[in-house]
């Protein structure tokens, strides 16, 4: 069973369009994330979200917005796509809000969505 899944795997679109990437986790985790990996493989956190709060990396443009219909899903919406948005986007999840520290904090990643903006 796939723990963290993303759709689509590939997304090619034109500048100015609005698109969404879906993410689902079946691990029962309480926190989900979105990361962007650029062409040089540099990985940057975009959002951290649980049912209580959304933490946004301040460098992320407000064209990007996460939307969570329920605890197992965190979709990424991108408005007015730009060439610089081309990257691989990874969804991840983890169990954070529990007692103690053992067995916590590692994040499980989805397979990624390669977004190409032309």
């Amino acid at each position, binding site marked *: 069973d796939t723990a963290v899944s993303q759709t689509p795997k590939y997304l090619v679109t034109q500048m100015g369009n609005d698109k969404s990437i879906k993410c689902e986790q079946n691990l029962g985790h309480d926190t989900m994330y979105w990361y962007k990996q650029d062409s040089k*493989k540099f990985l940057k*956190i975009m959002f951290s979200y649980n049912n209580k709060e959304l*933490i946004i990396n301040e460098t992320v443009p407000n064209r990007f917005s996460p939307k969570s219909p329920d605890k197992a899903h965190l979709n990424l919406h991108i408005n007015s796509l730009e060439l610089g948005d081309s990257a691989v986007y990874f969804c*991840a999840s983890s169990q954070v809000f529990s007692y103690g520290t053992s067995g916590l904090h*590692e994040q499980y*990643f989805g397979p*990624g969505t390669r977004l190409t903006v032309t």
Partner: protein
Amino acid sequence: AQSVAQPEDQVNVAEGNPLTVKCTYSVSGNPYLFWYVQYPNRGLQFLLKYITGDNLVKGSYGFEAEFNKSQTSFHLKKPSALVSDSALYFCAVRDGTNAGNMLTFGGGTRLMVKP
């Protein structure tokens, strides 16, 4: 602010030889440290973590890492490299006060193991 440095873009090692992938970090509180591996066209896979306790942490696939607080390092090691270990390795850090459990990743180190 937290940061991670992986000083080597690439590490080359012969199969059967020991390998080390270096990582240094900077955090304002107690560090939580992680290593992840990324195979081509795949997502990141968790290898190991340091939260507290023993400085030598053992993880998946025979990898281990040593936490050194004085040198603020968390180098990844394996006694005998395999060709199948060839991949991109990321070190990551989260400090104890970080809201949202947000990780900061290093730039990645490509490990090439040659037969």
